[in-house]
């Protein structure tokens, strides 16, 4: 139990995927302009990341390793992720048309979110068990959601603020992201 908690803490804060490992930066910059969109994206990513983390573990453990074709890992994981994203898209389209419209193009773009493939591959590298993979994927997505929502809230404030002409737009957003990353590096003392 303690071990699972540690994995969760480590992925959410200490080794945060966005701010410490610099994975999944495109949605981090792209969907963080409005809080509601960010929350929707966070939700969709959480679902996809957790599910694809578990699925890719199963595929790796029960198909790739017994058949001794682990060299096909990357392409297989991409396939798994694409399928999971497609399923999520259909599910969201059916259950919440508003969320579907808000997320728009970003929902299919989760496929190319490097954090998703990153988690699947890191699971293998860390020799995680099934439960550990699941927690690791969930933790990663919670960390991603936390950072994305915080960042979106900050960007909304900054938008209203008096930013110098030179820093307007993406520049100030990147500066903010850098400062946030700096703050999250401070968690490395927790290990």
């Amino acid at each position: 139990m303690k071990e699972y908690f540690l994995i969760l803490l480590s992925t959410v804060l200490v080794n945060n995927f966005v701010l410490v490992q610099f994975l999944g930066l495109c949605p981090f910059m792209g969907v963080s302009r409005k809080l509601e969109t960010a929350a929707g994206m966070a939700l969709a990513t959480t679902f996809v990341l957790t599910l694809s983390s578990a699925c890719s573990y199963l595929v790796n453990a029960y198909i790739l390793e017994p058949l001794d074709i682990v060299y096909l890992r990357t392409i297989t994981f991409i396939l798994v992720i694409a399928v999971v994203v497609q399923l999520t898209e259909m599910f969201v389209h059916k259950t919440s048309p508003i969320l579907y419209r808000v997320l728009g193009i970003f929902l299919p773009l989760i496929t190319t979110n490097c954090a998703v493939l990153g988690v699947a591959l890191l699971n293998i590298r860390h020799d995680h068990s099934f439960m550990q993979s699941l927690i690791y994927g969930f933790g990663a997505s919670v960390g991603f959601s936390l950072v994305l929502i915080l960042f979106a809230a900050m960007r909304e404030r900054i938008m209203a603020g008096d930013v110098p002409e030179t820093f307007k737009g993406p520049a100030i957003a990147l500066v903010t992201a850098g400062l946030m990353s700096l703050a999250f590096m401070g968690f490395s003392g927790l290990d």
Partner: protein
Amino acid sequence: MLTAIIALAILAVIFGLALGYAAIRFKVEGDPLVEKIDALLPQTQCGQCTYAGCRPYAEAIAKGEADINQCPPGGETTIIALADLLGRDPKPLNPEHGEEKSKRVAVIDEEICIGCTLCIQACPVDAILGAPKLMHTVIADECTGCDLCVPPCPVDCIDMVEVKPALDEWVWDFPGASLKYPATAANRIPKTGTSQPRDATAHDAATKKTGTGS
């Protein structure tokens, strides 16, 4: 090598089947009424009805949120067609949303244009051609006469010019068209400016496609 190919192929087939099943299970049925209403609207995407475009307005009508008399470009003919489709009473155009004008087309005064691209961004149907700091021009066939490009222009070089039906395009008014004549965008009365070929059904599809049938 062979195991790898077979394993991946089987995996792909399984995923494909799962997705296919999900596509049936989570199928979303669009509202067929929205399609029908949308087909009657003039597709100028002008936003005068206070909705972002013709389709959102059609959705609002289907939901009962919007009234049928908010479309100035469509004018009386559209209102009658909508009333016919929805089984409501036709009513005069709501003056809050503008008045019915004859068919117009935007013309850019190319001497004055500074090439700021603001009108290109405003155009809902991509009828303006141009690049930054180069002169712009309007593709008259694509222009729906929606006026949206006029306010953003910083040098006021866009004029809305009325299009008069040429001799070979002019047709008689449909008898009784303004009273109750149905329904398609094709049999619009020339009062709204568009010149309609007499054989309305044959040209129905073509006019709808270019969006100038209104």
